[in-house]
């Protein structure tokens, strides 16, 4: 095992160095960027189009003056607009957020001082176009509520600095159900990333093994005590690391661009599931590169594999296939447990493919590695 791990470390480092010194690799790594860019721009354009009225938040015109909500909204950078019917404004898409209705409970403030808990005086039903607006609206409501409480405490002879801290009052006024026109399913995004990374893997991994086989590099490595499984695993791992870095940069870019508009934080386990699924494809490409008689055959077969995987993921997403299915399960994984199931099944699939390829390497004469007899 120690020798296996040493060989894995040495060969992974070797492959990474070779990747980093290949100018074409950087071109391939830009492929996901080029492919995701139009979609990002499309989404960004849609979001920015709605940004034309992005600061408008409608509030009921009959809201009592003792809650300085309009001022608080302005303090948050939003534009409060008092309207008679917030629901109508919201439905006509002329606002980024709306306080649709409210309820007033006089009990709490009537009990002051001392503050002994209870519900907030105002309970809002609110909607927002996106998470950021929702957060700003919540902050505004808290600020307005706190200002109101401070005023009332001061008027009743209390000390706002002391009593507000000890007061078990919560201004639990959430804009629940905040939703907008732009929603991205984590599973769909994961499947899309696997599809993109699979394309990168195809470009990086199909030609290399064929060239190494024809150039006698595999033969040279395998006449050292290196186990074939370590060699194959190292190649899969090196490509997966490169894909991981490329995916991280790509996702980071999209996140920076759109995170304020769309909830893009990946669920726990999703990145691992995406990379594991991509590594299944990598293992497949490697096996085809090693086993195919020529580069052309390997390229054709790997292209078919990529297409089949893409269709499998689409079918999985549409039919809600189990997440424990290797590779395609990533398209239907939705919970943390599902993500880890998908990761585990993909890793098992990689192990199986690598082991089968190593077995095939033991029948090298048929693979024509190195020279003739």
């Amino acid at each position, binding site marked *: 095992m120690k020798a296996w791990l040493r060989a894995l470390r040495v060969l992974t480092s*070797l492959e990474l160095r070779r990747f980093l010194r290949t100018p074409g690799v950087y071109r391939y790594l830009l492929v996901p960027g080029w492919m995701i860019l139009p979609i990002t721009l499309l989404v960004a354009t849609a979001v920015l189009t709605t940004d034309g009225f992005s600061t408008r938040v409608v509030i009921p015109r009959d809201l009592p003056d003792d809650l300085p909500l309009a001022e608080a909204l302005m303090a948050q950078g939003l534009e409060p607009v008092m309207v008679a019917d917030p629901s109508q404004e919201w439905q006509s898409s002329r606002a980024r957020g709306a306080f649709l209705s409210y309820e007033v409970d006089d009990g709490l403030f009537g009990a002051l001082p001392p503050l002994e808990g209870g519900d907030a005086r105002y309970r809002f039903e609110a909607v927002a176009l996106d998470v950021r607006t929702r957060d700003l609206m919540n902050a505004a409501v808290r600020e307005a509520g706190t200002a109101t409480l401070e005023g009332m405490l001061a008027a009743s002879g209390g000390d706002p600095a002391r009593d507000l801290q000890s007061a078990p009052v919560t201004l639990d006024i959430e804009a629940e159900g905040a939703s907008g026109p732009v929603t991205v399913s984590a599973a769909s995004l994961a499947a899309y990333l696997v599809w993109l990374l699979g394309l990168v893997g195809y470009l990086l991994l199909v030609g290399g093994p064929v060239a190494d086989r024809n150039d006698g590099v595999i033969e040279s490595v395998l006449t050292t005590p290196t186990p074939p499984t370590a060699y194959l695993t190292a190649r899969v791992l090196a490509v997966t690391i490169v894909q991981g870095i490329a995916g991280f940069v790509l996702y980071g870019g999209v996140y920076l661009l759109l995170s304020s508009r769309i909830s893009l934080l990946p669920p726990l386990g999703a990145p691992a599931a995406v990379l594991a699924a991509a590594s299944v494809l990598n293992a497949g490409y490697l096996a085809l590169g090693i086993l195919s008689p020529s580069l052309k055959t390997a390229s054709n077969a790997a292209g078919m594999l990529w297409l089949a995987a893409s269709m499998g993921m689409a079918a999985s997403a549409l039919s809600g296939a189990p997440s424990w299915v290797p590779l395609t399960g990533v398209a239907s994984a939705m919970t943390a447990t599902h993500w880890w199931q998908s990761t585990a099944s993909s890793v098992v699939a990689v192990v199986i493919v690598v082991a089968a390829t190593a077995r095939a390497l033991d029948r090298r004469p048929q693979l024509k590695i190195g020279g003739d007899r």
Partner: protein
Amino acid sequence: MRVALAVHVAAPLVQASALRREFPQRGSPPLVAVHDATFHVHGGEVLGLLGPNGAGKSTTMRMLATLVAPTSGTATICGFDVRTQAASVRGNLGYLSATSGLPGRLTCREVLRTFARLQGVEEPGRAVDDALHRFGVLPYADRFVEGLSTGMRQRVRIACAAIHRPSVLILDEPTSGLDIVSADNLLGVVERLRDHGTAVIYSTHILSEAERLCDRIAIIFDGRVLAVDRGSALIKAARATDLRDAFLKIIGRQ
């Protein structure tokens, strides 16, 4: 006065016994590439394999290098069985064929370091420096291997094969494609390795190389080892004038 004379005969480092390899053929009987080859090589000895293309030299060497499993028969390298103890065999073996390659986009030093680490050399840095010096690659240490001449690249290949100072070195037509000077340099390297006790199996089509380098020569034809002996003994046994003549007579072409 009685004198006790003790003669210590070391066990051969390479021992092949009835080694056979068949390749399955679709729709026809299997092709027998090597028929029951039997030979041995001691440390500090060079065994030459002479034979025409397709005679089975490379398959024999690849079986010894654990790249091809024998169909039957046995072979040991330093006492380790090529079938069942492949990793140990590879640890004691250096293998270089005309088709052996080096990973691209690495410098000579990096390639050597990689192979030293794959071979489990304890101090790879020192082994690399030593190999760069021993094989005359020092001036090119930090150049990329793909930028080297064919001869220099072959030196790096042999340095990789021998970086862990193996007891057995298998060289399959190592001078193929080399110019006279490069080939001569490489033969000098092999001679030095032999002089340091390495057992070398060396296949070639160039008879002058075999005459210069090989302590014994195995003549292989159609997968069979027809004769194994010293060059001079082969010439004498075949009643030939030189090694070329002996070779042709032994394989039945004269």
